[in-house]
């Protein structure tokens, strides 16, 4: 660690915090632009003006937007994102009961797909142009370009309906043994991994191929090193940075993928909470969930950037 790297990393972190701040502003503006009055919507058409006025005060809607934004932001930072408009529970409580489920799902998907994608990406780069490479390539292109819900639908159809190996739904609360845990998580995790893995495999392969196209690799090939040796000993050490970058960046797809997967498997996670909140227009809940997703996404992209910086020896030894 030296001054140059510290400065670069500091700048990245600062950009990340700034982006998150801008995102919070956008989320707040978007959710405050509601056409029509929220209070009117909650109380219905027959509400008296006094009742509307009372609710407005109770919801702090009678104060100017910038003040409300700062209060909301302060609340977020101190862990109090407000009260749900629909069932009057604290938003923090609702999220706290769902967040571990989502983290478990994402964690299991990551634990499965990182090694698998690295294996596929590196082997397909080793045997570039072979039948194996073409099969992997076709499979990943196909997976990247079909909707996540199609992958999920097909997985349910094949494994739960036709083969009857696995349950189609997963309920995180009724888990008693490890075997049961694996069985009920197999389909959601496989679906989520599928999408992330395809992206990760492609990016890993591309990162490795960039290194393989450099003159020093050509030199290694010309001196007679076997392809396996060239890739593993010559190319891979220099590709670690780009690959780590690719892995972290692909993991940010967990954010989008999780939304679809939690819905189709009726998994009680935070993404389903958010989609339900969107349907009922429960703004405090939507805002809080949106911030959690954006933060997760930005942190993963930040980690990807940091991997690229930390693994660059030119920066390390300057």
């Amino acid at each position, binding site marked *: 660690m030296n001054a140059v790297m510290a400065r670069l990393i500091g700048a990245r972190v600062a950009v990340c915090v700034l982006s998150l701040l*801008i995102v919070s502003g956008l989320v707040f503006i*978007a959710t405050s632009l509601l*056409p029509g009055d929220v209070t009117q919507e909650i109380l219905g058409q027959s509400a008296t003006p006094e009742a509307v006025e009372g609710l407005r005060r109770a919801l702090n809607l009678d104060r100017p937007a910038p003040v409300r934004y700062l209060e909301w932001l302060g609340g977020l930072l101190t862990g109090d994102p407000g009260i749900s408009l629909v069932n009057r529970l604290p938003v923090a409580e609702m999220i706290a009961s769902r967040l571990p489920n989502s983290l478990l799902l994402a964690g299991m998907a990551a634990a499965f797909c990182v090694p698998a994608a690295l294996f596929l990406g590196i082997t397909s780069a080793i045997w570039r142009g072979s039948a194996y490479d073409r099969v992997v390539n076709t499979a990943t292109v196909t997976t990247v370009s079909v909707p*996540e819900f199609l992958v999920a*639908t097909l997985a349910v159809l094949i494994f739960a*309906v036709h083969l009857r190996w696995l349950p189609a739904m997963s309920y995180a609360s009724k888990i008693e043994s490890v075997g049961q845990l694996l069985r009920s998580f197999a389909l959601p995790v496989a679906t989520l991994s599928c999408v992330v893995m395809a992206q990760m495999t492609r990016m890993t392969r591309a990162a490795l191929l960039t290194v393989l196209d450099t003159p020093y690799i050509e030199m290694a090939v010309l001196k007679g090193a076997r392809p396996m040796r060239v890739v593993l000993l010559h190319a891979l050490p220099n590709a670690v940075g780009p690959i780590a970058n690719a892995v972290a960046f692909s993991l940010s797809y967990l954010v*989008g993928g999780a*939304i679809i997967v939690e*819905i189709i498997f009726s998994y009680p996670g935070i993404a389903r909470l958010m989609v339900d909140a969107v349907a009922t227009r429960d703004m405090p809940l939507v805002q809080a969930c949106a911030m959690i997703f954006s933060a997760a*996404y930005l942190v993963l992209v930040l980690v990807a950037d940091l991997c690229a910086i930390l693994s660059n020896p030119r920066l390390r030894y300057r």
Partner: protein
Amino acid sequence: MTNATADTLPRRRRRWRVSASGTVGLAVVGFWLVMTLAGPSIAPHGSGAMVGSEILAPMSREFPLGTDYLGRDMLSRILWGARYTVGLALIATLLACAMGVALGLFAAVQGGIGDAAISRVLDAFISIPSKMFALVMVAALGSSLPVLIGTVAVIYTPGCYRLARSMAVNISAMDFVTVARARGERTAFIMREEVLPNMVLPVLTDFGLRFVFVVLLLSGLSFLGVGIQPPAADWGSLVRENLEGLRDGAPAVIMPAAAIASLTIGMTLLIDNLPGRRRSTVEGH
């Protein structure tokens, strides 16, 4: 490229090496484009007509793709839905690309503060996950066609902008642009006549790639129930409303999903096989 070669070769010929998978992609995309225009007129039944006596029926002579959860003809539903899935995605992608390219050209040709300001703002937009942003917008403004088109266009403008700007920056550093500036041409003229014609092919390829993302996002939203609202239905909503047929493997669930997949895979194959195209879907959704 010097002026001499441009003079001796009146029209620069590109060698379009057409591969098998590219042809398949072109055929599939072309088919769906035709269906978007002609679908409703050749559909055997109306979009909402309850014609079948059986719900979620399997494929038969009368209903080639089975019936949906209300006994409506699935083939007709898909043909009508093409209008929403393909048409809406086309409009949104066109908007996104037009805004992105216009801003990118302007930023590159103008440079300076304008460039920096546009770049910073759009970079912030890129850091919002697309599905999440769409969900927030739909939560705030309700789900209607203009909201969906606008949201999707805003989401995909920054990506287009980045590509257009990086290419336009290179092009506007070339001699002929300097000459045009020296001639005293205005910014709009340089953008339109000098820079834009030199980046048409990459922009078109990018358009195709972004079209795939837009189709995936829009059908994903409809699948979640926050996209196209009933009675209108795009292919994503068709999958959602017939989801109960999944347990029996009803074609009403499989077919709309397959239609989306054929469109997006076809488009990916097509742009992957365009000349001058190296990498494709490495960039994100």
